[in-house]
Each structure stands twice: as C-alpha cells, then as structure tokens.
C-alpha cells in the first residue's frame, strides 16, 4: 500500500482519535481486540485519504454527535477562521475550556468532574459548567462577529 513513516504516523494518530471518540461517544461495545478496531479505522482512513486522492478527509467526515441540521446559511453569518478563535480560547479561557471539554468531549460524569476540578459536588459542577458554556458562547459569538466586521 505504500506510504511514508510520516503518513503512517498521521493516519495512526488520527485513528487513535477516531477510536477514542467512537468509544466515548457511542459507547461502542468491544467485541474484538482493540488493535482490530485500530487497524480497521487506520485502513479506512488510509484508503479515504490516499487511494481516493483526497487528502482533505478530516475526522469530521465520520459524522459526529452534534446536530448538523441547523441551517447556518439562514443566520447570515459566515464560517469564521477557527484558528484565531481557538488561540484566543486557549489563552484567555483555558480553565473553562478544560472543564467543558472534560464534560462534552471526555464525557466525564459530574461527580468525577467535580473531583477533578475541585468543586464541592455534582450540583456546583453543573452550575459551573453552564457558566462556562455561557462565557465561551459569548466569546465565540463576539469573536465571530468581530471577524465578520473586518472582512466586510
């Protein structure tokens, strides 16, 4: 099948991410050894990315949990460069991003979350999670709008 070390490294690392998300998100019940899944995913990614000569296949093409049906065109906003936004959130909103990602990405339950972030319990972790969600949402919105103003 060919492929360089670097290509194999990228494919393998992406396969790990896909596998992790499949297990976390869909609660995939494992019937075979882990390496069988990894091999299968890696093979799929490789075929997708290199045989079909489409190097732009991303993890998104696996179809994820979030609702994609909201029609973005209707809102009148353009998609914004996410790089800048991500950079800002990493700088200014680290604490909230860690909390949100622990809940929405790692799918930790509220008890575990409270333990990790030092909250008194599940209730206070839930409250904090929503506070962070609101804060980050405002940043996402403000940043996207600002960017809009510049490009127009």
């Amino acid at each position: 099948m060919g492929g360089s070390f670097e290509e194999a490294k990228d494919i393998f690392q992406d396969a790990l991410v896909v596998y992790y998300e499949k297990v976390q998100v869909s609660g995939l019940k494992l019937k075979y050894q882990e390496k069988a899944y990894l091999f299968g995913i890696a093979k799929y990614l490789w075929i997708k990315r290199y045989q079909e000569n489409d190097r732009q296949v991303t993890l998104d093409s696996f179809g994820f949990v979030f609702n994609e049906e909201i029609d973005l065109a209707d809102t009148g906003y353009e998609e914004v460069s996410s790089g800048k936004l991500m950079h800002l959130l990493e700088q200014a909103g680290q604490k909230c991003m860690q909390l949100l990602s622990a809940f929405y990405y790692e799918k930790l339950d509220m008890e575990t979350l409270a333990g990790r972030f030092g909250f008194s319990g599940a209730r206070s972790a839930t409250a904090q999670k929503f506070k962070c969600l609101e804060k980050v949402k405002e940043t996402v919105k403000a940043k996207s709008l600002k960017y809009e103003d510049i490009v127009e």
Partner: protein
Amino acid sequence: MKTSLNELRLIEHYLLSDAKDGESFLFEAKMILQPELKQQVYWQNKTYHTVRDYGRKQLKNEINNIHETLFNTAEHQSFRQKVMRLFRK
C-alpha cells in the same frame, strides 16, 4: 444579548439529545417564531463544535507527546528500530 441559564439548558437538550421528542418539535416551532432563539441555537452549536475541537487538540497533543517519547528516547530505541524497518524498502 445574554442567554438565560434556562435557555442554555433548553438549547443544550435540543442540540445534544439523541432522540427527537415532542419537545423538540415544539422547540423547532419556537425557533421559527423567534429568530433570536434560532441565532442562540446557532452560536451554542458552534460552541459545542469549538469545545470538541479543543478536546481533540488536547488529545492529539497527548498522543504526540507519547510519540516523541517512543521515537526520541534511548530506552525505546529497539521499538523505534522495529517500526522503522517496516518503512525500509
């Protein structure tokens, strides 16, 4: 405009719950009647995507750190050689 906590919860339920129930249809009707709500849903959805991207990035960093350890430290040299042999033609 700031979103109320209750609205955040409702939007979260609408966006992240798997099954569509009666409430979802009610919510969709509300979105038609209140364009402002629809915008809030859009931004919240985008926020979830951003959080997912952030989580992914952290995970990839972790994976890459392990890669660095495996391929650039003396103690894992034999593993490294084993892998590199696969790529030798």
